[in-house]
């Protein structure tokens, strides 16, 4: 059995290399949507936050979790919507 820390670090290492490969292929013209899309993806913290916000304990951790859910939701919703708004404007020359 692999210890959890090693397993998580392994995932980290692979994802970073994969990230470099993927992002290097994004053309300069799409760098702004890439950044706002990355904003949206970094809102993934919401997944960690919901389990902390839903313990029903009404203690400090619960409130912190709820605040984290709100902040991360701004990123998720705002990030994806504004990226879509931008990408809809990119058009190829007709003909």
């Amino acid at each position, binding site marked *: 059995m692999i210890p959890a820390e090693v397993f*998580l670090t392994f*995932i980290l290492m692979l*994802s*970073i290399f*994969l*990230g470099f490969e*993927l992002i*290097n*292929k994004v*053309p*300069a*013209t*799409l*760098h*702004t*949507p*890439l*950044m*706002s*899309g*990355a*904003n*949206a*993806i*970094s809102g*993934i*913290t*919401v997944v*960690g*936050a919901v389990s*902390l*916000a*839903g*313990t*029903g304990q009404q203690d400090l*951790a*619960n*409130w*912190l*979790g*709820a*605040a984290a*859910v709100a*902040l*991360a*939701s*701004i990123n*998720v*919703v*705002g*990030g994806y*919507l*504004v990226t879509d708004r931008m*990408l809809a*404007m*990119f*058009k*190829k*020359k*007709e003909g």
Partner: protein
Amino acid sequence: MQTLIQFAFVLSAALFIFGLKQLGSPATARRGNLISAIGMLIAIVAALMDQGIVDYRFILAGFVVGGVIGALAARMVAMTSMPEMVALFNGFGGMASLLVGMAALTPNAATFTLVTIVLSILIGGLTFTGSLIAYGKLSERIGSGAVMFVGQQFVNSLIVLGILGSAVMFCLQPDQAHWLYLVVGLSLVFGIMAVIPIGGADMPVVISLLNSYSGLAACAAGFAVDNNILIVAGSLVGASGIILTQIMCKAMNRSLANVLFSGFGSGKVETTEVEGEIKPISVDDAYYVLEAATNVAIIPGYGMAVAQAQHVVKELTELLEENGAEVNFGIHPVAGRMPGHMNVLLAEADVPYDQLLEMDDINPRMENVDVAIVIGANDVVNPAAREVESSPIYGMPVINVDSARTVFVLKRSMASGFAGIENPLFYKDNTRMLFGDAKESIGGLIREFGS
């Protein structure tokens, strides 16, 4: 059930990766964004299935508040303000990770977990306040200049030592909450101190870097709460920010350390004497030259966006094409206030993306260009970067407009650019200055084509 949730996370990781892959081409990018959003939805639904969740009221309240703010911001933000919005969102992401890190603290946590909690608080905290300062500078709510004072390095070193010290103490005595609060407080202060010495012209680098940090903070929070999907998604964002940071540094011929610590753009003006004279041109004469041109290149800078001239530029492009000329845009990586900003501004004005050429693609074609029109750009077309070794921007890659047969520079007055550097381009034999508001000058050209 737990296994099912974990498999759902695997699926959403795959969708994030596929979504980013689709972002490799403007033709598929919009679908890629949608795929990524579906991945996020799956991850959130899966997280809500967790058996530890007994009370949904706090979660729902968080979703509603955040969702409404996010949706309004996304709908209302002007494209010129995208850098501010991205900066602010970086900050929110950082703060969310800081809060998750704090809330993840349980009695009897292992040292490894404690270290990751400290990391998510440290990175999240400095991302939050750093991003707020970057937002303030970009939106000009606070002065955009670099703030330097005597002993700054010393103060910063003290803060770093303080963070390290209290972090170590916290890991040794996790039940002593004041060490944790000290880490939180110092991280927040450090974010401010790290961004104030960086000038407005370097903000594209800073928001790219903070973008990366917001991902790394999510990554650290993933370790703290033992969640794979946070690690995968966080490191994808981290990698993306690092690559963009590198591209921006390269485009300005600066090392990252130089950007972060030197306070460049703090208003030190080089007064190198430039030989030659300025040759103004009237709208009438400019029209005759353009009418005869068969190959036109437009080099926009942020000044074009400030003058809100994108739409008239697009109109002029159409008239030139009807007149039989080939028109391309040359986009320097730091033409806007963030990576790719200029491309978005032109896309908003309906300029097709295949007409937007990167610097390395337009430079070899420049010799065949009859007229290069420089609109609101200065440093990115400055030949001093190639020719004048004493220039502060010497070595920076620039668009070689001076190789074109004729260069029109649209400029309000003879003031120097954002970085305060003299531009010998204005004095070259083949350069003509078209003074005045860019929008009005181009409007004048359009009227000439109409008559």
